[in-house]
């Protein structure tokens, strides 16, 4: 994306969450700024899962955190259930918090090691004084049971559980206040493949059981495809491509999406890793992002235009009427392959 725009947004009436022109910047000293998220827009319909994908440093976690106003974004609007969260006072925002929860990447460090699991899970209920003591205990039992933790083990502390079990406890803590929206920030990146599958299945079950809407942040496109109804690919604080997973994976229109797809290791010895498809170089500094399209320094299709003009999000040409949008001046046609060994022509273009 390295681009901006709102062409991919749908009817605001149906959206549970609508993020428009979100910008998050951090001071970097010497008057410089880290451009972590630069004009990103997306919306989520109730019951949907939006996958946010990209490399480390692309701003996907910052985007997730800015949605729950941790910290508040520099500019832009975040409309949740019809209210713009960026305009709310601290107390008004606090009242909405039980309806928006987060699950973090590292399950062990996101649980307080000195507290018992049952108390960690019950905390949300206690803060909001939901129910009496007995009904709270019953609710904790029910939620622990639903995530696959034996409530009899609720008196134990986090270190007595494995990483996968701690992530189950984090999920229990998130769903206990019966939220509408959960931001899952790389919830399976720290887990083994076998445990990852358990947690992904569990998230799907929780979604059905508690009627959740999810933002699922990850760097693994295969994992994202498994859980998502819509996928948004980010690069260096910008949007590259948005679409339904079937269209986006079958015919990626943005060169960066194609590179991410090619990088997934295939568990089949017949498929030799394709070195030409490997994206070279590193993500540029968000303090001095490239002009125009931010991906141009690593893109084999980059041209002068990419350095001068930022691409806007628009529907993919042959995808008329389909849910597939791209921000690229030279989008890929279906079946086109790229040779990343000659990438980065855009880097030589000086403006």
């Amino acid at each position: 994306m390295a681009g901006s725009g709102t062409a991919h947004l749908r009817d605001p009436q149906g959206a549970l969450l609508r993020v428009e022109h979100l910008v998050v910047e951090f001071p970097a000293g010497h008057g410089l700024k880290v451009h972590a998220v630069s004009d990103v827009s997306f919306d989520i319909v109730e019951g949907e899962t939006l996958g946010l994908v990209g490399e480390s440093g692309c701003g996907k976690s910052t985007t997730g955190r800015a949605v729950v106003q941790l910290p508040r974004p520099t500019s832009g609007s975040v409309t949740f259930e019809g209210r713009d969260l960026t305009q709310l006072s601290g107390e008004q925002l606090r009242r909405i918090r039980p309806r928006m929860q987060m699950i973090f990447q590292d399950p062990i460090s996101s649980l307080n090691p000195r507290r018992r699991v049952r108390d960690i899970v019950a905390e949300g209920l206690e803060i909001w004084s939901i129910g009496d003591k007995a009904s709270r205990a019953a609710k904790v039992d029910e939620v622990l049971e639903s995530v696959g933790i034996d409530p009899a083990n609720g008196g134990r502390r986090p270190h007595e559980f494995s990483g996968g079990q701690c992530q189950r406890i984090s999920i229990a803590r998130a769903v206990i206040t019966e939220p509408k929206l959960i931001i899952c920030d790389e919830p399976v990146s720290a887990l083994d493949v076998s445990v990852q599958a358990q947690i992904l299945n569990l998230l799907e079950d929780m979604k059905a059981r508690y009627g959740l809407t999810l933002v699922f942040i990850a760097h693994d496109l295969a994992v994202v495809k498994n859980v998502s109804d819509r996928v948004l690919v980010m690069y260096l604080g910008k949007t590259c491509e948005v679409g339904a997973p079937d269209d986006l994976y079958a015919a990626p229109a943005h060169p960066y999406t194609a590179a991410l797809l090619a990088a997934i290791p295939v568990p089949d010895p017949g498929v030799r890793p394709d070195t030409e498809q490997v994206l070279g170089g590193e993500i540029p500094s968000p303090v001095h992002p490239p002009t125009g399209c931010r991906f141009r320094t690593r893109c084999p299709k980059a041209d002068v235009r990419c350095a001068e003009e930022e691409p806007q999000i628009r529907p993919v040409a042959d995808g008329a009427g389909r849910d597939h949008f791209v921000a690229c001046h030279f989008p890929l046609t279906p079946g086109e392959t790229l040779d990343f060994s000659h990438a980065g022509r855009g880097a030589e273009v000086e403006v």
Partner: protein
Amino acid sequence: MTAAGDGHAPVASSPAPPLLDVRDLRTGFETDRGLVKAVDGVSLSLEAGRTLGVVGESGSGKTVLSRSIMGLLPRRGTVREGSVRFEGTEISHLSPKEMRAYWGAQMAMIFQDPMTSLNPVMKIGAQITESIREHLDVSRDFADDLAENLLASVRIPEPRRRLKEYPHQLSGGMRQRVCIAVALACGPKLLFADEPTTALDVTVQAQVLDLIRQQQDERFMAMVLITHDLGVVAGRADEIAVMYAGRIVERASTSVLFADMKMPYTEALLSSIPKLGEPPHSRLATIPGRPPDLVNPPPGCKFAPRCAYVQDRCREEEPPLLDASPGHQYRCWFPVGTPEGAAAFERNRRAGLVAAAAIAAEPVAAGPAAAPPSDAAGG
């Protein structure tokens, strides 16, 4: 600490001994609860220039295996038995002082976490030249030039400038490249790569794995590639050993393993990887529960409590390493792809056994509802 069992078998009688030959290696840690048998009777060998993939979940003993072979475990509280031969020489009883001749020069290691495996208060150049100056009799300037060439060969831009930088000034992928440069500095014959890309993004993972393979080809170096992801080793290892509960449960050449896997654990690991070809919201196959307690492992097959093919015999009698074909061994009474295995799976499925239902990836009721009993048992 001393070699035991068949460790003294005359390996050297063959014309050229393999580069690495491990026989019946056992490594345990003494704890308050008893001896944790982290590696329990592992034998393997590796020829020069070849790549062995070691695959298993957290806690399967794959990391302890590599550290045990290299002699990197603390002496206190560690019990190590069995034989480790490097180019025909027994090294399992050597002291750390004697092992210094091997570390870096003959065998080296890349660790999982590039953040913590570099010294944060030492310049990158000094970390690379440290082992060069230790093992090779060269001047400081020559060592610096060598370090610069190494950084260039692992494709770090502006290597001369980077030599004077500290690890925190580099990204995760760059730091892992520096770790590779440190490991390759003295031209080792054997490289252990312990989850070298687990902490990295998929795009950087592909870059780093390609780089390791290219360096391996140029230097005719053997490698033990340790990972929990069968996808990572599929295109890159000549042979794969699957570990579970401290032992090798299946071993074969990569093509044979993927075409004709016998061990239910290998099958379960492979089917739990999300596939790009599947539609969104496909139910993933899972392995219910978690690896057994290594202090008091269950009798019989260690995988039995989580296995979709489990029968009464599996819970009582531990299967030995059986031969499927030359070079292909497995530990199972009811292997995948055989009539006995199919019958066992079908019996479990009919009986509605938990594990069978989870593997077969049946909708909603199976997965999480099935997981708690075995999952919580170990907690």
